[in-house]
């Protein structure tokens, strides 16, 4: 029950314990982990605007395994690129809103690990792999890695994911993304007439000068 214990600890105490070397998860472990993830989805979906996309078990399990192995690889630094590619694969299926949201349940923990890995070794293969994931899964990764346009378009196409994405930009005060024209309008709409109090410098860094360049 490696994965199930890991998830239980992560979602209840925030403190996790795992074994030193990557290994495959047993079928009964995956089954128990799926039930746990479904319960977590039900609680989290209450906080999502509009109607949350339905639960997609393969996506949630893929993200859980990815998170588990990323924690391992962050701690065990001597593992090579081949192990990283093998244990942190891309999602195999079609990326739908259901996949985006179900995977996000655990991918949302990865930005912290990316920052930690960067601090340990900026040029590491693990860092490069996480940065690639960040570009592919923009809902889960805020921060400096700008997303692939197609990946971001998939998020913006769904009303619940779009609103959640904008909420996260505002919560993180992500100036780089919020300053982009296609997101600036969405952030402005969310702030409404209260931008000056809700995000005091929003107008300043999104001002466009007469030659079309941003004021900053």
């Amino acid at each position: 029950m490696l994965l199930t214990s890991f998830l239980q600890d992560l979602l209840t105490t925030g403190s996790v314990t795992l074994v030193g070397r990557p290994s495959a998860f047993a079928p009964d472990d995956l089954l128990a982990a799926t039930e746990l993830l479904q319960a977590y989805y039900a609680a989290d979906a209450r906080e999502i605007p509009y109607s949350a996309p339905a639960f997609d078990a393969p996506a949630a399990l893929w993200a859980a395994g990815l998170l588990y192995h990323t924690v391992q690889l962050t701690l065990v630094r001597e593992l090579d690129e081949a192990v990283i590619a093998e244990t942190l694969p891309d999602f195999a299926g079609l990326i739908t809103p259901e996949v985006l949201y179900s995977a996000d349940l655990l991918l949302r923990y990865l930005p912290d690990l990316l920052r930690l890995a960067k601090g340990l070794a900026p040029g590491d293969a693990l860092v490069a792999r996480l940065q690639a994931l960040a570009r592919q899964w923009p809902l889960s990764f805020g921060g400096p890695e700008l997303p692939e346009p197609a990946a971001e378009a998939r998020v913006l196409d769904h009303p619940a994911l779009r609103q959640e994405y904008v909420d996260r930009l505002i919560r993180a005060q992500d100036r780089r993304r919020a300053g982009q024209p296609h997101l600036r309008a969405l952030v402005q709409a969310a702030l409404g007439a209260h931008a000056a109090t809700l995000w005091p410098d929003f107008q300043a860094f999104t001002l466009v000068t007469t030659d079309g360049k941003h004021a900053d």
Partner: protein
Amino acid sequence: MTERVIVLASADRPVLGHVRTVPGLRAAEAAGQLWLRGLPATGELPVAVRALPAVATYAADAQERLFPAGHRTPTGRLPALVWQPIAEFVPLELPTAAVPARTVPSYRVRLLPSGRAQAGAALLTTLPQWLAYVETAPEIRLRGLRFAVSSDAEVLVLGTPLPPVAGQEYWLQHGLLLPAGFDLEAPLLAPLLARKLDPAADGVVLFRADGRWEQILATDVVPVTRGAVRLTAEGFAA
């Protein structure tokens, strides 16, 4: 004979108030009887003394032997008592006020249209309207808000900025929520009124436009999250 002595029943103590001012009169109490001495041996006694309900009257000689009136043979001796001047024996007591108690004047709170404007601090709306807003509102617009729901599904939302939801907006004055556009008829009474209606200062007092009011305890007001509002609505639907 040197003086006259009067004996009364103890129960007649209140009548001694009439002779408090008789000079030289002293009194003592023993065995259910009141003894008075110090009256002159001869001459007419003051009217107040003569009006006392005496059970016995004596003349006493220098040896304190007691002679019943008109008798030449003593029948007893003046008992050895702690004699007090009559003014000390019957002290004055302040009378209880006989005037009727004064009732506290009541004040009927009235609201009048106000001539000034101020920012809204609360919104009273319905649960369906509130839920519809929260379902799609940006999180940043919910973060500064708190809410409470009544048993008849009325929702009071507190905080800023207030949500753009149909309902009655309220101003906050000294812990009193007044309908926007209204002031107390006597605005200076607001702090006093707040202290009277919410002495523990553990909530807000909501006034309706018709003067009715209700207290909302701070413990009944919770931070706004989509989950909290959805669960509340589900509780009403069940």
